[in-house]
């Protein structure tokens, strides 16, 4: 098969970008992943003396969360519950024309072409996405029994790969689904309870400071999420947040 690609090209964060049109070779194999198709296009660009298309990618098995681009308006493309590296060309037809863009959000500045800066997510985690336990100070793992239902649900939230598709899909570029998944994973576990209030207040404050928008219940994030993280976690985070605000009665600040 053969496709026409309109790809967003942008030299760096400070330059304006534009679409460029490329024809793929006509032997694109339906079993190829989308990124392997781009590899083939890139090899030809290099041999023709042009700069290849830059995009983030690493594990290519859908777990590292590095890859991500908007294909025909959908983050990670038309395959549900899959990252771009797990999108296969059999999802497309011979002769299709595709529009390929980076995540677009104020919190994710474009670095080059399809590559964006997602360090905002790390800063949100740094603000409280952890349980303070010193190495070596943990009790025996079976001393804290956790019901299977709770453990499974914590795992549902913890499955987030931090790719940012939720932000890219949201009309407000909100990072609520990402933040909620991190907050709820820890807040619902007994180990995470002592820091529950502080965690949710600080992480939400950081999320806001990074320039992400608010949630207005479009639920596009859940639809785009390659791990199908549920928006229920957003509702639960809102509950945690309100409870924490009521209990704390103090401004949310960085301690120390």
């Amino acid at each position, binding site marked *: 098969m053969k496709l026409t690609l309109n790809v967003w090209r942008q*030299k760096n964060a400070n330059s304006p970008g534009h679409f460029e049109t490329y024809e793929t070779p006509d032997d694109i194999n339906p079993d190829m992943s989308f990124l392997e198709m781009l590899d083939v296009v890139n090899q030809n660009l290099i041999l023709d003396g042009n700069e290849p298309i830059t995009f*983030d990618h690493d594990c290519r098995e859908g777990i590292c969360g590095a890859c991500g681009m908007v294909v025909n308006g959908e983050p990670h493309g038309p395959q549900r519950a899959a990252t771009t590296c797990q999108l296969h060309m059999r999802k497309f037809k011979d002769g299709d024309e595709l529009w390929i863009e980076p995540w677009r959000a104020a919190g994710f500045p474009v670095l080059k072409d399809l590559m964006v800066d997602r360090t905002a997510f790390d800063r949100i985690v740094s603000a409280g996405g952890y349980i303070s336990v010193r190495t070596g100070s943990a009790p025996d793992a079976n001393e804290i029994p956790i019901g299977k239902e709770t453990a499974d649900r914590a795992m549902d939230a913890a499955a987030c790969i931090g790719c940012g598709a939720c932000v890219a899909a949201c009309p407000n570029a909100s990072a609520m689904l990402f933040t909620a998944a991190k907050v709820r994973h820890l807040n619902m576990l007994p180990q995470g309870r002592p820091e529950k209030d502080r965690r949710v207040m600080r992480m939400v404050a950081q999320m806001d400071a990074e320039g992400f928008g608010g949630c207005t219940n479009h639920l596009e994030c859940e639809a785009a999420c390659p791990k199908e993280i549920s928006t229920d976690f957003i509702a639960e985070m809102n509950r945690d947040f309100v409870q924490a605000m009521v209990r704390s009665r103090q401004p949310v600040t960085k301690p120390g």
Partner: protein
Amino acid sequence: MATLDGKCPTNGPIEKRWEKHRFDMKLVNPANKRKYKVLMVGTGLAGASAAATMGELGYNVTCFCYQDSPRRAHSIAAQGGINAAKNYQNDGDSVYRLFYDTVKGGDYRSRESNVHRLAEISVNIIDQAAAQGVPFAREYGGLLANRSFGGAQVSRTFYARGQTGQQLLLGAYSALERQIDAGKVEMKTRHEMMELIVVDGRARGIVTRNLITGQVESHLGDCVVIATGGYGNVFYLSTNAMGCNGTAAWRSHRKGAFFANPCYTQIHPTCIPVKGNYQSKLTLMSESLRNDGRVWVPKSADDVAKAAGDIAEEDRDYYLERRYPAFGNLVPRDVASRAAKQVCDDGRGVGATGLGVYLDFADAIERLGKKAVSDRYGNLFDMYQHITDENPYEVPMRIFPAVHYTMGGLWVDYNLMSNLEGLFVLGEANFSDHGANRLGASALMQGLADGYFVAPYTVGNYLARVQPLSVTKDLDRDSAEVKEARREVKGRLKRLLEVDGKKTVDDFHRELGKLCWEHCGMARNESGLEKAIGEIAALREEFWDNVRVPGSNDSVNPELEKASRVSDFLELGELMCRDALERRESCGGHFREESATEEGEAKRDDENFAHVAAWEFTGENQVPIRHKEALEFEYVKLSQRSYK
């Protein structure tokens, strides 16, 4: 050829040695810890856990990774689980049994003291991870669940669905982010280590390239810790991430660190077969699948083109069950991989390329029901269907071995310090603990053991003996050695960009991978290895003459990153073949066709090869020197591994 000393404690019973060693080690006064700086390269399980723990102890840590976030290191892709000798199942497990299994599984090519320490620490890792909120699988009573894994006769593997590596890494990453928040760790993402700075025999710093701006920078400290994973991508196709590379280890090797046992590579038996030459990576299917799946090929090569369902039961060869009745489909990875290769060499491989064997769940579905099979392996079945467009509930999966892990790595002593003072190596990047073959669910264990519970002590013991740079101020960015290191890196990058040849980096990488896979893969022999050594050297020469790297060094340039990594693989691949050539025995993942039993099983030569081979770099295109570290076995009796 010198004899190396691994500095393993040998006095007293083995179960007391680590404890005694810890007591004997020097401590750094709490008030002095903040005067030291640790340079941590890599943020996988080993790097992230070590950086977090050392930051928490009070050291200043600067941490580097090539990814855009420390959370993306390739530990994240480990599926199956992590071993620990908790004996929560009351099925007869113990620290000693895990120790014994690991030494035996490694085909008696690892250090007893190291492995025992690993088994001891395994129980602390589970406690630590559970306290961090890692959502391990649990039973209805709320206690932790276990499964048997990779041929172990006890259930000692802890897991979090099929995403154990991800969850353990996110645990270590959260601990790391906590220290970043506390100001004890400075994180430098999208920075790749390009060179080691050695001054008077001591590792004092590194040179990095900023992958966004291209800037070449030097970073100085009191020690350097390398936790950059393995070199499986030398084979081009592997289950490693695209960016996994051997550069930090190889650059350290070129600066004097010995590289140990590079020929020990693990080829994992249950991966999705290669489809076409466009393929960029191979996908592993967790080997937990072998708990219920049955491996087979047609008895006759005439049947390979038939659909699996059209091959009658009596015409199928369940070759693992036939050859290894005691272990059946659960034989260790090296044995299962080699057996798959042999049936494919017989012309009985299935699928379009003939390089595949069936992994069949029909019996399991009949015995347990589709629902139970789906509960156990649902996500893996989905993944398989997603990639291959075939439904494994209806037709058997097709699998083939793929490069997965490298047991070899930089040589380290018991303290995880290389032969270069101040250079520590953790996790897959070092050579210790797994011998010639790693058991399933042991990589996560070793990475976290090194990072949480070994390095924080042993690095401290080293630092206690040296004056901190913040006090001595004997080195800065303008010192001759530091300037020279930056100059070398810049020169190499410039050279790569200037070749402007006719082949892409991937072209070279693919050719290198093919050579290594053919001659230094699942079976190796003298003439093949000699041929590969010559051809890799020729390919390397051609690379520097004919590679095309587009763009420049002053911005994001993934092709330049790849070119630099592949240039190192072109040297490392040769050393791997050289090591395989010199090790004239079969052991673990290293199978020399000349050293086999009459039944075609691997045959060790303990008399001549019960040692670690540690290679010393002697110069570009020079023959390296092979040093030996003798392996002593006090507790585990050497015997031929048998899974029959």
